[in-house]
């Protein structure tokens, strides 16, 4: 019994309500770091068409705020990360069920388009849930009496910009860099640039792909915890913005907000690299549960 004082008990109905709210919130408003990044790219952009497109993206945020409309019609695949601090008491099965109910409730009550189908029959249950969806990830943190839900409605235009390569150790870091550049070129305008290019390096194949998604959905301005990862973020961030893909793939300086890198140790015979792209509408929302209540934010 390491942690004695238990002060935070999670009520599943509160999770359901929070998730329903986060789904709609994430579809209606962009986090300040993302809106700020569009403005920054707009001011630095040298191409006329690109500037007009970036202006439209800023205008779209304002219109959504004014009308209560959604930023994008793609309601995405719901991805929820539950971060659990120490001393939190909860029933994991009940929490997962509540997350599903929250997603379905938002879909029904707003209403939202259900973008979720069975992968073989393509049948749509019209509530944005299905087998193993919403995707729910759990992680544990030191913070006492604290729980956080991070909600990402992952749009498919950029999710289709997902790539994995099991490179050889002899391909080295050069192979990793070439792969990232080539996949950004291949994705072109299809992934709705300017994007966050999420790069996973190392691990097993599944961990590598997961890390690419973690990287793609990290707030702008955050950096890799690994110093070698940080160096790559800077180098590749500059490189992809010299490709000239531009907003919507129609040319310009603004191809990516950033390249984000997440790393994991890997096997002596492996050199895995994964890319997962996040479109310009880098939507996310969170709810933090503490003894003081529930705080909703970006």
């Amino acid at each position, binding site marked *: 019994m390491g942690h004695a004082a238990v002060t935070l008990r999670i009520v599943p109905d509160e999770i359901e309500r929070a998730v329903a709210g986060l789904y709609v919130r994430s579809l209606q408003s962009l986090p300040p770091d993302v809106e700020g990044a569009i403005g920054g790219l707009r001011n630095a952009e040298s191409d006329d*068409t690109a500037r007009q*497109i970036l202006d*439209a*993206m800023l*205008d*779209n*945020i304002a*219109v*959504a705020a004014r*009308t209560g*409309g*959604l*930023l*994008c*019609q*793609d*309601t995405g695949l719901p991805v929820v990360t539950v971060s659990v601090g120490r001393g939190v008491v909860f029933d994991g099965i009940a929490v997962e069920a509540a997350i599903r109910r929250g997603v379905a409730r938002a879909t029904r009550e*707003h*209403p*939202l*388009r*259900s*973008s979720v189908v069975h992968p073989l029959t*393509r049948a*749509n249950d*019209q509530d944005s849930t299905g087998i193993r969806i919403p995707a729910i990830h759990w992680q544990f943190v030191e913070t006492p009496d604290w729980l956080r839900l991070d909600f990402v409605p992952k*749009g*498919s*235009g950029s999710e*289709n910009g997902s790539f994995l390569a099991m490179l050889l150790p002899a391909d080295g870091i*050069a192979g990793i*860099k*070439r792969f990232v*550049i*080539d996949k950004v*070129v291949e994705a*072109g*305008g*299809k*992934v*709705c640039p300017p994007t966050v290019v999420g790069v996973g390096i190392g691990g097993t194949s599944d961990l590598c792909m997961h890390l690419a998604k973690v990287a793609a959905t990290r707030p702008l301005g955050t950096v890799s915890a690994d110093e070698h990862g940080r160096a790559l973020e800077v*180098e590749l961030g500059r*490189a*992809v913005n*010299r*490709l*000239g*893909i*531009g907003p*919507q*793939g*129609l*040319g310009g300086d603004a191809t990516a907000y950033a390249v984000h890198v997440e790393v994991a140790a890997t096997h002596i015979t492996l050199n895995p690299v994964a890319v997962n792209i996040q*479109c*310009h*509408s880098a939507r996310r929302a969170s709810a933090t549960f503490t003894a003081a209540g529930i705080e909703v934010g970006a």
Partner: protein
Amino acid sequence: MTRLHRLTAPLSETAIRELRAGDRVILDGPLFGIRDATQIALFDQGRRTRFDLSGHAVIHTAPNVRRVEGGFEPVCVGTTTSARMERFTRPLMERLGVRIIIGKGGLLDDSLAAFAELGGVYLAVNGGCAAIETTWIERIEDADLLDLDPECLWRFAVKGFGPLLVAMDAHGRSLYAERRRAVTANRASVLAELGIEP
């Protein structure tokens, strides 16, 4: 020189061939929404629609809608990535007579050839700007192939839909293809700067 055209479908081949890459278009009147499942149903599974699309514009979309008495109300109408639906451009034009495809991210070489041969254009809308796009939709007039919800064949009435960019025209010009060629050239110098052999 960039020109602005205000158009209402159905449109003739002559009217479509007036449009040049780089021009802007604002659309009024009917606009049909189609997506992957709609076109799989129409062209791979042989299903029919009661709508006449001849001379009309289609948009790559699956909207968020609210069911109301007698039909649907738009909640959010945006545009999806076109490239997935590349192989349906030709049958859309040949079998259904479609003249305008609206989408985001562009279509590829076969579509460009079909536009030149049959008289069609691709108009680009800003992807991920659906809050704006929804304000251009007056109402949802009708929908066919309802079992495919949300990928039904939608019939919207639009007013002031645009400005849209003529990104692929009926004269063999594609702004996307031009951009891809430029990016391929840039790739070589970017890799060189990274000290990597292409």
